[in-house]
């Protein structure tokens, strides 16, 4: 079976800087995959390439067996890639429900239907009580939830989560973890960028570690955290030796 998402030999250069070099990863249906790595490893760049914010310098991106490398972001969303942003990008002058309706309109143009769908998703994300509040009045953790809800309303096959759990209090983060699990239970595949290892490792089925723009290792979380290469990438060589 073809994987849901595949990147084949993806390169991204920004002038002299190589953000991604020869990155080939694949994500299977129904998986929760963590994309981790120290700052500047190229996680966000890879994310943007998959979401279609910019085309890769070289290489190709495949969704469900189709080449989507040249498709713009909006069309990739219509094909089933939903995403959140690391720095939340709510529609601030719109209400919470209206924010989600924008996403729901990918699947239907019947307003009544889109509105119903949006309420459903808000309930799922635990924001139903805030539906008629302006997005600008949400607290940060609620805004993160709104990002997820909005993306879910597009009914994605693949959900890209960009540091949705970072910077939350432990209780909020725990709720976030539960939300991601419930998302997977609905049949959505999740690829998440995170750099707080403690939070992601128990959640993901598999982790891919990027370092200096390349795939360093990938595998089960338990193996990853003990891998000397990963430890050295995160903490430096001295710690790797002592481990």
């Amino acid at each position, binding site marked *: 079976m073809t994987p849901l998402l595949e990147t084949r030999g993806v390169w991204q250069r920004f002038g002299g800087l190589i953000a991604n070099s020869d990155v080939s990863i694949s994500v299977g249906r129904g998986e929760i995959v963590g994309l981790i790595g120290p700052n500047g490893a190229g996680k966000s760049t890879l994310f943007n390439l998959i*979401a279609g*914010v910019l085309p890769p310098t070289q290489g190709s991106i495949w969704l469900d067996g189709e080449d989507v490398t040249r498709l*713009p*972001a*909006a*069309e990739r*969303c*219509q094909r089933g890639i*939903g*995403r959140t*942003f690391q720095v939340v*990008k*709510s*529609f*601030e*002058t*719109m*209400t919470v*429900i*209206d924010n989600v*309706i*924008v*996403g729901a*309109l*990918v699947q239907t*143009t019947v*307003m*009544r239907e889109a*509105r*119903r769908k949006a*309420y459903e998703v808000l309930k799922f994300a635990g924001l139903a009580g805030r*539906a*008629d*509040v*302006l997005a600008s*009045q949400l607290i940060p953790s609620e805004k993160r939830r709104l990002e997820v809800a*909005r*993306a879910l*309303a*597009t009914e994605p096959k693949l959900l890209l989560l960009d540091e949705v759990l970072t910077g939350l209090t432990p209780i909020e983060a725990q709720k976030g973890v539960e939300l991601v699990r419930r998302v997977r239970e609905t049949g959505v595949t999740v690829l998440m960028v995170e750099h707080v290892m403690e939070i992601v490792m128990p959640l993901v089925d598999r982790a891919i570690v990027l370092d200096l723009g390349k795939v360093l290792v990938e595998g089960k979380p338990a193996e990853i955290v003990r891998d000397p290469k990963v430890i050295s990438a995160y903490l430096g060589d001295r710690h790797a030796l002592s481990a």
Partner: protein
Amino acid sequence: MDKNFAQRRRRDLVVAAAFAVVAALVPLFVKDVYVQNIMVLTLMYAALSQSWNILSGYCGQISLGHALYFGIGAYTTALLFTKFGVLPWFGMLGGGLISALIAMALGYPCFRLRGHYFVIATIVIAEIALLLFQNWNFAGAALGIDIPVRHDSWLTFQFTRSKLPYFYFALVLAAIAWLVTWWLEDSKWGYWWRAVKDNPDAAESLGVVVFNSKMGAAAVSAFLTAVGGSFYAQFVSYIDPESVMGFQFSLLMALPAVLGGIGTLWGPVLGAVILIPLTELTRSFIGGSGRGVDLIVYGTLIVLISLARPEGLVGLFSRRRKEAVR
């Protein structure tokens, strides 16, 4: 909650219908031609500002060059009528379509610009068009076009004895612009536009084709604006470049919406009802020394209102905002 929303939409319709009926009855009591003239202009600017609001308020692409579309509407109607004997009704439609096409042709390069750069482009383009028309001999160059007055007739849309037909037509125009906005507000386009205004990147990630959204808004906005321009040409029977394409028209379309509440359904109407009579009155009573004083008066007014109500005058009536404060 779904019910609340549907109720609010219906209430808007009922209120609008009530306003329209009241407005339609006003001329029965107000016979003064000068006042009727102001009423016609108020309704016309309500319609124009509502059209402007679609592109600039809802979609967030601030245009200060809408005089271009207003002028194209006026010129299309006047040229077709005087040179080819085409009835103004077809001129109205033709002007609207030409404007919509031009708006999209201009949007193609300009919508790549963001924020202030887009605004500057709209101003410059309208000024260029003004200069072109001032030198276009076929269209009367700087002298403009005198539309010959024949008999009072709905066919040629000319009325010399009474302002009332113009008044009712302007009322219908304002009602149409309002209804179009009302309808678009709860449609895919309406949501796309607001999303584009608030955050284009996020919009794109949710399947919104930002460029097409802007093009759609520009086309609708330009079409309605041009229809207003066509109406104005017939109303005043004489047009020249400065009197239909001058920068002040761009401002007069933007200001009511900004004053009343940009990106809102009622903002343009509310703004026009306050601003246009004020403009006309200050112009006739204290504007003798030039056209500066009226501008000072409503400049001051706008500053005061934006200090007190940054979201526009509709903020005074807004239920949603009160709810929103938890």
